Structures are given as C-alpha cells and as structure tokens.
C-alpha cells in the first residue's frame, strides 16, 4: 500500500496538501523557518551578477538584506527539483517537454513563442514575488497558516492577478 503510493501518478490533492502541512511543522520545529522559495532566486541572481561585476554587488542594499549565498531556503529549492524528479521518475511521468499541452491547444506548438512568453512570465513572477515579499509558498502557504494579515492579502492578490491575466490570455487573446 505505502509502496504503491510512491509509484502513483497523482495523489488526492488533499493527501498532498496534508503532507505539505505536516512538512511545514518540521520546517518550524527543526529549522525555525517557514517554507518559502523566492529568496533563493534573489540570492542566485546576486551570485550570478557577482561573477560579472565582482564583490561590489554585495554592497547593493537589497543584497545586504538577502546576501548572495547558498542558505537553507536555497537548498530547499534545490531539494524541490530533486524531489519532483524522484516522484515523476517513480511514476513514469518524467518527460522532457518544451510546450505544455494546454498552451499548445490554444497557441500552437511554436517553441519560440512559448519560451518568450514563459520568460516574460518568469520576469514578472520574480519581480512581483520580491516586491510582495514572498511567493505562493512563503506568503500563500507559510504566511497564511500563521494567520498573518499580510499573507492573506498577498494570497488574494496573487489569485486576483492570476485569474484576471489567465482569463485575458486564454479567453480573449486565445478565444
């Protein structure tokens, strides 16, 4: 039974959610930290910039707050890549894919179009996450579960912006 779960393609969303909730207990207990993802991208961005511009990058006010180093959250995000790889390999759904099917059904199979749009989306996502001080993990799960007012407002704004933009993309541009 337990072994079968490892090989299943998809779990009940409630079971996955409950497991993530339990995982958050361990993050608080063992690491005294809430689970979050977006600062890892900030730190990596700083590390890359430092390769080109040297240590003066460390003096930027934002990188004084979020030093460009490998920290707990950076390792967590690396772990997410590994964990999803293990999960998808066990169930056999791991597949190298450039254009997701929902996108292709509306906008076609063009690789360059999908990559361009994904790049723009990624830029907005990284920019917006740091602007808001957190992402769907840090605000959306960890902040809301702590009953922070800021995180519930962020959660609502994430989905307000997301629903409006998705409606525009798929029902107006794609419709």
């Amino acid at each position, binding site marked *: 039974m337990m072994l079968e779960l490892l090989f299943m393609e998809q*779990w009940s*969303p*409630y*079971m*996955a*959610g*409950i497991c*993530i909730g*339990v*995982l958050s*207990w*361990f993050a608080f207990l*063992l690491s005294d930290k809430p*689970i979050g*993802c977006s600062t890892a991208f*900030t730190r990596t*961005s*700083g590390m890359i910039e430092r390769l080109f511009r040297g240590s003066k990058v460390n003096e*930027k006010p*934002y990188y004084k707050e979020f030093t460009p180093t490998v*920290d*707990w959250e950076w390792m967590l995000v*690396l772990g*997410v*890549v590994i*964990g*999803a790889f*293990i999960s998808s390999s066990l169930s056999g759904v791991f597949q190298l*894919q450039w254009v*997701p099917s929902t996108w292709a059904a509306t906008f076609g199979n063009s690789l360059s179009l999908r990559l361009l*749009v994904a790049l723009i*989306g*990624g*830029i*907005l*996502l*990284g*920019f*917006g*996450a*740091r602007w*808001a001080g957190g*992402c769907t993990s*840090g605000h959306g799960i*960890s902040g809301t579960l*702590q*009953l*922070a*007012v*800021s995180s*519930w*407002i*962020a959660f*609502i*704004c994430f989905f*307000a*912006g997301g*629903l409006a*933009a*998705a409606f525009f993309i798929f029902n107006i541009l794609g419709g």
Partner: protein
Amino acid sequence: MLKSLHENKKVQLIIGLVLGIFFGFFLQKGGVTNYNIIIGQLILTDFTVFKVMLSAVIVGMLGVYLLRSLGFAQLHLKQGSIGSTVIGGLIFGVGFAVLGYCPGTAAGAVGQGSLDALFGGVVGMLIGTGLFAAMYPKLQRKILNKGYFGDVTFPQLLKVNPWVVVITFAILLTAFLFWMENIGL
C-alpha cells in the same frame, strides 16, 4: 537542544535539502508542478491548486500553533503594506498566469522535465529578482512603505486568543473544501 540545532549552519543546509526533497515530492504527487493543472485553476476549470493549498494551510496552521503553544516553535511573520503586498501580489499574479508556474512549482516542474519552466521560468525569475534588487532603493523610498500595516496577525487584529481564530479558520476552510466537492469542483 532545538536551539543548537537551529544554529548549526551545516546541518541546517542538509535539513533544508531534505525538507525540499519532500516538498518537491508532495508538490509533484499533488499535480501542482503541472502547467495544465495550474492554468486550469486560474481559468477555473480545475481546483486542484486550491485543494492542495487550503488543506496544507489547515493542517499546517493547527500543528504550527500547537508547537507554538507548547513552546517548540515561534512565528515568522512577513511585514505588509498596501504598496508592497497588494501591488507586488498583483504583479506576481500576472506572472503566475503568464508563466503558468509559481517559483516553487517551477522548480518542481524543472524536476519533472518541463523545459519551459527552466529556460523561460527560472531564467526569467533570475532576471526579475535581479531587476528588483536594482530598483529596490528607489521602490523602497517611493512605494513599498505606502499604507504600511506591519506583521499583524488576525488574532492580534481581533484581540482574541489565537486558538479562537485557528479553530474558526480550520472549520471555515474545511467547510469550504467540502462545499467545493459537493458542487462538483
């Protein structure tokens, strides 16, 4: 004992990696590292993302507040303001729909072989966070502190024992999930 564990930097890096592996595993098994499922949520044809997030919040909230009441954990709240939380949240939301992943699920999507999440999403996020770092001093002066309300929680706002809010939220969110199932979402 917990304090010395928290202060051991090397061990913390390993714990971070292990927790991340579980997180990625659960996200992938939940289906939320899949572009189609995330977009399905945003166009309201698939409610998997809400179901995963809300059940994580209910269970996480009960456990974290229990750990806190027992003295094993403390809260780590984020500061909020209209200028930062609302505007940043809306920009993030648009990026969420345009990319079709969020930062954590993009990392998970990379792990399951989605190359648009890697070459579009991750590269874009590195550019976006770098841009933010470059613009931070100016944004900080002009926008981020507008309408500042700090790291207040609902129990503080309502001036009640945290457990009143925890139990109420747990019941309301569970009822909401049951309602979604009942109407067939």
